[in-house]
């Protein structure tokens, strides 16, 4: 019975979304306050009903209600409760419901926190948001209904893909979706601005927190996904340029560009049409990501559930939203007034460079991801694009971006002086040279690539810290006054510093992992020990153990350094009888500078086991750096300009004139 409530709630949410996408829009066009006022309660009600549907499904998973086909196909009674719950979004139907749930959540958040928005803008934003909701609710109800019944009811479910049975699944997809779907708000603001024909600094300030929140979530989501594949897939890698990874990385790249260009709109009233276009493209790439994952047009290890009919439907949605938005853009954008002028060497110029490079980088990834598909369509040829392509194209684009990253924040608005900026980077030049030299001395002339990578990381970090030191007058004033200045720095500045420093740490991590990873594959018997990178790994025993829903071959290993025991490691190879599948339980010992990573494989037939041992230097920094970036975003989100002093449009008179004109 409760399952029907969930189904019914979804239908109700669809009806509400349909109303919400029309009535406020008409109200805004006719300047009718009553009709515009529909938007907020509708958005809240839509969230309520989608929320009911979502929690009904979650309940069905919690109690293993196998009368739902979806639950029977993706869960089993033997699962621990956590994996029963995360099973909700382990599959196509459930993850689409999560998608819509988060969409409704953002809609409700805009409705709840938008008292300082002009009513017309708010009405339009929420109406556009509801249009997206209508499309995806229809998609769920027509092609991917998680509330489909199954008869006869099976006694036991088919279980969950063992690879997905991990704590990572609890956080990775929701975070990723918060990012993907969060960019829908930037998109809605962009569409509302195009309808209204007006983009100004106030608009940029309103849209900024939403973009930031989505960006933080996406950064976290991507980093978690990468971490998850690092410790579950069991071959030591953390990024594979897989189409689905790329699908999440493209909106991140363009979203990062959007964050930066919106600053120019906010501070200097320039780059307006470009910012609008970026907002449209960012969300469109999220939709493309959904399309690629859910339609199966690309073969990928991630395409767990793919179905061409659903592909047609998502493509239709993509065409409506992106196509519609771009046509609206072509029509309205030429009428947006131009903004402030600036010299090429200036903060604006640097941010524009950042945007061009990020957009090019995203285009590279886009081409790499879609080239196989498009070539197939045009020339009926099949190709696959692998990591070498990205190393050759993506990396050369990122290098100038990262070099410029240290300089940009030091340039003043309007017109800057490159020589003066470099002068202020004296310390950074020294740090860069020191990092390069130290690397070359420590690991020989052959690690020239690693030296460049670490030098780049040092350059960004030192450049960012120079900026901070200068802002707080670190070397020119007493410590107390430095502290006071640090406290008074805007949170947005702190956010920038964290995020840029985090990027430096990520670069160092990537460099370390690609230059100095050591790998050892051995056939080991209990009692033997192996050397890797100065550590000794002693294999003491191999046991057969059983977990809640699996049995495993589990090794007892001791990790030793200089004769002292550092840690105990227990890699496992798990077998899941319900699903008839296996998963790798990697053992990782980290000291935050490097990981020792151990995997146990099959028996070698001579009383031993295949063991793989990796020494991954600096790899933890990839995730520490990503965490610092996300933290930077969160700090920036708490900036007082988002909380107090509701941004006001330039003059009341201008608004009044526009209202009259509209009438």
């Amino acid at each position: 019975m409760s399952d029907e409530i969930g189904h019914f709630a979804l239908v109700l949410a669809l009806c509400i979304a349909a109303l919400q996408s029309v009535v406020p829009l008409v109200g805004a066009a006719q300047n009718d306050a009553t009709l515009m006022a529909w938007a907020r309660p509708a958005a809240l009600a839509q969230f309520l009903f989608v929320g009911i549907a979502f929690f009904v499904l979650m309940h069905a998973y919690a109690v293993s209600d196998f009368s739902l086909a979806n639950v029977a196909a993706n869960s089993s009674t033997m699962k621990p409760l956590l994996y029963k719950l995360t099973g909700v979004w382990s599959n196509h139907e459930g993850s689409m419901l999560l998608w819509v749930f988060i969409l409704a959540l953002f809609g409700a958040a805009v409705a709840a926190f938008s008292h300082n928005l002009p009513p017309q803008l708010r009405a339009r934003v929420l109406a556009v948001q509801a249009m997206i909701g209508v499309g995806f609710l229809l998609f769920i109800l027509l092609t991917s209904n998680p509330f489909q019944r199954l008869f006869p009811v099976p006694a036991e479910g088919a279980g969950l893909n063992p690879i997905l049975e991990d704590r990572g699944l609890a956080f990775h997809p929701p975070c990723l979706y918060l990012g993907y779907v969060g960019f829908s708000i930037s998109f809605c603001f962009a569409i509302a601005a195009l309808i209204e024909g007006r983009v100004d600094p106030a608009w940029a300030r309103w849209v900024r927190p939403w973009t930031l929140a989505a960006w933080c979530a996406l950064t976290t989501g991507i980093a978690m996904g990468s971490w998850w594949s690092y410790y579950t897939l069991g071959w030591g890698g953390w990024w594979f340029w897989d189409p689905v990874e790329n699908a999440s990385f493209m909106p991140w790249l363009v979203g990062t560009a959007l964050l930066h260009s919106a600053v120019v709109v906010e501070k200097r009233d320039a780059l307006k049409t470009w910012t609008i276009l970026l907002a449209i493209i960012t969300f469109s790439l999220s939709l493309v990501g959904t399309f690629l994952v859910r339609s199966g047009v690309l073969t990928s290890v991630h395409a767990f559930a793919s179905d061409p009919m659903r592909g047609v439907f998502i493509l239709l949605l993509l065409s409506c939203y992106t196509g519609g938005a771009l046509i609206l853009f072509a029509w309205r954008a030429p009428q947006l007034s131009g903004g402030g002028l600036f010299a090429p060497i200036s903060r604006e110029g640097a941010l524009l460079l950042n945007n061009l490079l990020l957009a090019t980088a995203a285009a590279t990834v886009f081409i790499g991801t879609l080239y196989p598909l498009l070539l197939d369509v045009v020339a009926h040829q099949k190709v696959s694009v692998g990591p070498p392509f990205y190393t050759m194209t993506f990396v050369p684009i990122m290098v100038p971006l990262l070099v410029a990253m240290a300089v940009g924040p030091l340039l003043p608005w309007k017109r800057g002086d490159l020589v003066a900026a470099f002068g202020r980077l004296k310390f950074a030049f020294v740090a860069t040279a020191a990092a390069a030299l130290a690397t070359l001395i420590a690991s020989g002339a052959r690690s020239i690539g690693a030296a460049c990578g670490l030098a780049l990381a040092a350059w960004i970090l030192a450049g960012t810290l120079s900026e901070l030191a200068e802002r707080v007058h670190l070397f020119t004033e007493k410590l107390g006054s430095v502290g006071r200045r640090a406290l008074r720095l805007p949170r947005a500045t702190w956010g920038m510093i964290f995020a840029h420093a985090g990027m430096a740490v990520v670069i160092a991590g990537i460099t370390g992992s690609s230059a100095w990873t050591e790998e050892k594959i051995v056939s080991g018997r209990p009692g033997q020990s192996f050397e890797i990178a100065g550590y000794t790994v002693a294999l003491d025993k191999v046991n057969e153990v059983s977990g809640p829903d699996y049995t495993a071959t589990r090794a007892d290993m001791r990790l030793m350094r200089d004769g002292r025991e550092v840690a105990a490691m227990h890699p496992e190879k798990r077998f899941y009888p319900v699903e008839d599948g296996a998963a790798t339980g990697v053992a990782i010992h980290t000291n935050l500078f490097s990981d020792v990573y151990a995997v146990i494989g099959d028996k070698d037939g001579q009383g031993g086991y295949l063991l793989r041992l990796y020494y991954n230097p600096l790899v933890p920094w990839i995730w520490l750096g990503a965490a610092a970036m996300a933290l930077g975003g969160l700090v920036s989100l708490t900036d007082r300009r988002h909380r107090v002093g509701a941004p006001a449009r330039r003059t009341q008179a201008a608004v009044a004139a526009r209202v009259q004109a509209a009438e």
Partner: protein
Amino acid sequence: MNKRGWIFLVPAAVFGLLAVGFFVGLGIDPSVLPSPLINQPAPDFALPPLEGDRGFSSADLKGHVSLVNAFASWCAPCRAEHPVLNALAQTKRVAIYGIDYKDQPDAARAWIAELGNPYTRIGADEGRVGIDWGVYGVPETFIVDSQGRIRYKHVGPLTEADIGQTILPLVARLEK
């Protein structure tokens, strides 16, 4: 619209083309691929061994039906496919040969050591031989009859269903 208004149409136009591409792409099964080499003799080649001292050459394909699988350690779908090949090797129904395509030998050896070796022989190919076979990407799988002619080509990872419904019946037919 001013004189430069057309430039604002560019994004919509690009998207339009992409959408058409996507639509056509949906109709294409990524695993179906006509090959001009079907029913042609397999190309002459001799590859150095990936490990050990037995290389892989066209002479190995004569006299029995064989399955030739192009793979690489950097290819994620190959990893997904590998257990299927291992299972097929266990049945001993057909001799499986591997072309390790554009790969680093160390990485490939490690990969085989980790995942198991279903191959009778593995040749390490820098890309030349793959081109002769018409390999566009990995994994790709060919069935070669006892006269050494290519009879079937499969693009993308093999699944258990492919083995059961296509590969094994074809092997049985060719062995008659």
